């Protein structure tokens, strides 16, 4: 996630990180025979989906403004 400059790849890497956390949650839920981990994994999934909605919306908005898709060059927040 730190290496790439393309915001799309950054979002994809973020998905991988969240999925790793999900896998750990579910593995320990199974290990401890406790359903809370699965509930939390489902909540993480919902948060990841909303984050993708907002992130992809931002990318599309940037693309419409002809802003280069490069996180190093996105240093200004003015619209």
């Amino acid at each position, binding site marked *: *996630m*730190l*290496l*790439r*400059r*393309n915001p*799309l*790849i950054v*979002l*994809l*890497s973020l*998905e*991988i990180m969240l*999925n790793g956390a*999900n*896998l750990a949650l*579910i*593995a320990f*839920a*199974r*290990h*401890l*025979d406790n*359903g*809370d981990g*699965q*509930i*939390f*994994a*489902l*909540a993480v*999934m*919902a*948060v*990841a*989906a*909303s*984050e*993708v*909605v*907002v992130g*992809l*919306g*931002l*990318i*599309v*908005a940037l*693309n*419409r*403004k002809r802003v280069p*898709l490069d996180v190093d060059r996105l240093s200004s927040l003015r*619209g």
Partner: protein
Amino acid sequence: MTVVATVGNVLVWAVWVLAAFACLGSGVAVVSFSNPFYSALALIGNLGSLAVLYLLLSSEFVAAAQVLVYAGAVMVMFLFVIAYVDPRLESPWAGGPGWQAIGAVLAAAALLVEIIVVIGLNADGSLAHSHDVGGTFGSPGYIGRLFLTDHLLAFEITSIVLLVAAIGGVILGSHSRRSEEGVAPL
């Protein structure tokens, strides 16, 4: 009977090893492809193998949700946006390793070592035997009962988060269209 059980165990191990290595390999592929389209396709493979791992951990409902929500909805949206913005190619390892690349790899290695040490110190051999879970563990009914009794607040907050994200997506989309037509932005 024991022969059947042994064959079943070997099968479970084989599927587990296959899914784990597919998961790792596709994860590495996501970050090392230069074309974002291929990265997204590799992420679909990653999510699929994770769903297999969830099934092996007897979490059927989460595996189904993973396939439906991630591999279905989220990745289709990703692929649409990648095709829409037509991103330029980027070679991730061009120009030799920069200080950022070295730092990222070092940080990841440190986190890995830390996780292994913490789990190894705390588990103390109790990782070898896990609880036997009942047949209803991870079924939709089980999850639904937990959601509507112990975790009602988390359930409701999740719905509000999804609603806010939907509204935010709509506003982000309409805002840029309006400013493109020369009308003053919101």
